[in-house]
């Protein structure tokens, strides 16, 4: 007999709370997952595809639901750290398969060789290359993100990636690189 009462009581309680939760879940409906956009905002937007995804947004969506966070080569370690902070996970080292020296590079077209075949223009994700068919092409230096997608399609191999030269404006106070010995 008491067992029946016990079952009845527990059933009653859970019924009441079930109703409460049902009502609450309707009232507090939440839509969309802002996480993917936030990750996309962190990525360096070079759309270079070295993470295996055809651009930064797809990689951001993948990371939002579980992809490894250390595949973005241009972003390097600080992008990994930022994504780790956002997602609240431990930052892990850069995936060595994608390890490329991410010193910032800019593409450069050797003008004598360019035959105006516009293949690089189609390849450039950010339209940083000016030129039409049969005309000389050139790259807008400060638009180019250094994603190196234009090097491959060029039939006459006239595009090379050049590191950005160091000037007094972007010098970063690392006194070590002045070629002078320090005496202690």
């Amino acid at each position, binding site marked *: 007999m008491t067992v029946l009462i016990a079952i009845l009581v527990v059933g009653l309680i859970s019924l009441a709370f079930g109703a409460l939760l049902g009502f609450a879940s309707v009232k507090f409906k939440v839509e969309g997952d802002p996480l993917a956009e936030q990750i996309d905002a962190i990525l360096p937007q070079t759309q270079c595809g070295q993470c295996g995804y055809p651009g930064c947004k797809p990689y951001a969506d993948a990371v939002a639901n579980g992809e490894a966070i250390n595949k973005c080569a241009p972003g390097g370690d600080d992008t990994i750290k930022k994504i780790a902070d956002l997602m609240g996970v431990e930052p892990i080292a850069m995936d060595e398969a*994608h390890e490329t020296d991410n010193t910032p590079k800019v593409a450069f077209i050797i003008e*004598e060789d360019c035959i105006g075949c*516009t293949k690089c223009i189609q390849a450039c994700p950010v339209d940083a290359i000016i030129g039409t068919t049969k005309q000389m092409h050139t790259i807008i230096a400060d638009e180019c993100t250094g994603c190196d997608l234009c090097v491959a399609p060029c039939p*006459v191999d006239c595009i090379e990636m050049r590191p950005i030269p160091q000037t007094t404006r972007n010098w*970063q106070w690392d*006194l070590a690189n002045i070629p*002078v010995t320090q005496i202690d």
Partner: protein
Amino acid sequence: METVIERIEQGRFWQFHGGIHPPEMKFLTTNKPIRTVSLPQRLVLPIQQHIGEAGELIVKPGDYVLKGQPLTKTTVPLAVPIHAPTSGTIASIENHIIAHPSGLNEMSVILMPDGEDRWRERHIVENYSQLDKNTLVEKIANAGIAGMGGAGFPTHIKVNTKAKIDFLIINAAECEPYITADDLLMREHAASVIEGIKILDKILEPAFILIGIEDNKPEAIDALNHEIKQFDKIKLCVVPTKYPTGGEKQLIKILTGKEVPSGVLPSSLGIVMQNVGTCHAIAEAVISDTPLIKRVVTVTGQALEKPQNVWALLGTPIEHLLQECQYPQQQKRHIIMGGPMMGFSLPNTQVPVVKTTNCILAPSEKEIPDANQEIECIRCGQCAEVCPAQLLPQELQWHAKAKDSEQLTKLNLFDCIECGACAYVCPSHIPLVHYYRVSKAEIRQQKLLDIKAEKAKQRFEARKARLERDKKAREEKHKKAAEARRARMNSGTEEANKEKSAVAAALARVQAKKAQQSGVQANTTNDDKKSQVADAIARAKAKKAGQSAPNGDAGDDKKQQVAAAIARAKAKKLAAKEQANDDSAEENINAVETKPTSAQDDKKARVAAAVARAKAKKLAAQEQPSDVGTDDTGKSPETISSTAEDAKKARIAAAVAKAKAKKLAANTESDDQRTEGEAEASTKDKDDVMAEAIVEPPQETSTSTQDDKKARIAAAVAKAKAKKLAANTGSDDQRTEGEAEASTKDKAEVTAEAVVEPMQETSTSAQDDKKARIAAAVAKAKAKKQAANADTDVKQVEGEAKASTKDKTNVTAEADVEAAGETSTSAQDDKKARIAAAVAKAKAKKLAEKAQKDNQTS
């Protein structure tokens, strides 16, 4: 406002937080007058000596310039011109080391003085009071005056503010130890300093003028008092000596009790501050029309025999000043530009004097000991007590070492004025200011990167939208064209039937071609684009797997082969599907569909290519370490370059294969269009995904039928050659993988050439038959040379033959260039020649690499 003036009258000033009392050491140079220095052998004038943009050069090497003649003119408001400090010839304009802590080089004018010191004509202005404000500001701007206190902000901008100015503060504090330049300047030229102040008063019309000076310069105070007696608007405020009283924000707090809000210019508070040196320069510029060409520099330090203040011409190398003050030649040279607190150490003595150089310090060993060992911060808080900006240096260094930029901005790192007081008092000898400078540079760099990323994102979104729009537009056009055609066909008129028969003929021809090609080689001639691309990638991957097999690990290799096999299978299945719906009437619509679907495949192919490239790069990286491991180091440099070479070649092969695939698709398309012969083909959008497709059809329709025939001949010749080449390279299969891969590349390259040739021939206009014939000849010559090279590979002739091929390739390369040279008649020919030369040069380069690779593999 009144209270400020009342307090100043009574000599009671406000206090700023912190501050330190380092030993002043001004006695070294206060008792000696300012000496003029002899002319140095050469003057180095960096074209940018101020904050903002550099001016534009208006002189070229070899010009003779007079003293005071401007060398650069200003186009941008934030630019300040530089002038020739003395008459002489300009030796060169080159990158020379400049006065910057980085020791980097910047564009500078090298002037060789001729010793005559001849002035350009100058018009002296007796009474500047009738000049209106704009001419005064313009005179200051043309004289190239920038702030001389240390920042170097262009004066004409600072002076030209629209805001209502309550206080014009003249900074004569000079709180940095050792430096007495302003002190001596005020003593000897108090009159011209006051003139300069009056000019500023005329321009800015401030309510009050305050001269802030420290109480450790009695003679200068007397000199100034004597001068300002009859000018009651100027108040001389003698403030207690404390470093960094000379800081802009600190002096404003002392004199007016106001605090400049963070990140805002003082002019928003109605205050403009100018250095004493700048006032003197303004007076010189406006009254005696002398641009800023020399300034007072304190050359001091106990390592010098005779430390003294000198009038130094801008651009004088430090070497010269040190010789003038007898700097002993010692092994360890310790030279600082600026004072001991804020100056930077110089990497060598060729650095020139610039507008902001107020001191050259050559301290002896005991004066400034070498930096001793930095130990951990014990948070003793002494640095927080002395910080004039009321920051927490111990918290800042903790987060700076951890590179935590978010905390650093929360702790207001950018309010740090880098005065050095905290590092001066730190008992653990931590170079605090160095950490802050590094962190500031990193945070600025990160901001730039974020902005660039944002811009790249927008451009990418815009491009995607544009491609979407184009695709939709193209689809509508095709749909309209298809309806129009269908309507015409069933209208039953006479030319409708002819059209129908034309369509049927085209279908038949396509059928024949497909049957014929599929017979010869299963995957290479298959004309469906999708399978082509997958094949190419599969082949590239298989080849890479083949390559890495000898030295890569077996596991990776097996995975590659499996992937290649899958790709091949997929390609074959697609080809079969394509076959099934080929013969249906809607073939061209399919062609249309394949184009958009091929667009997606193209993108997928590009991604696959990118991934392949990334893997290729990784493989190349893997091979490099394993290669270096090999014993004969002699050989390894070549192999490293060759493996890198293979990786690049693999990438190029993948790309070229893709390009070829696109071309072939374009050919099949062009056949259909020709059959339709509709005007529609020519109106196709310019930036269609298949660029080549555009290249061929418009030219073809416009040239006469005769040219059409010749183009087809050339195409046929090229195809034949390609087939022959494929046949004989197939024979030497037993060659190592590298070899085969090289030959397939040749084949691909030949076809690429073939692609280029017909394009060239067809592009000549109707009336240039002769030129077409020459171009054909050139193409034939190249093809022959190509064939010759292929034979040498097959025969593997030792030593001289290879040498000969190398010479031959060079010879043929020249031959191409000459051939191209002879036919250069019209401009168009010239362009065509250049293209031929470029392709030849690229090919020659590739051949040379291949030849070089041959002699190691043999």
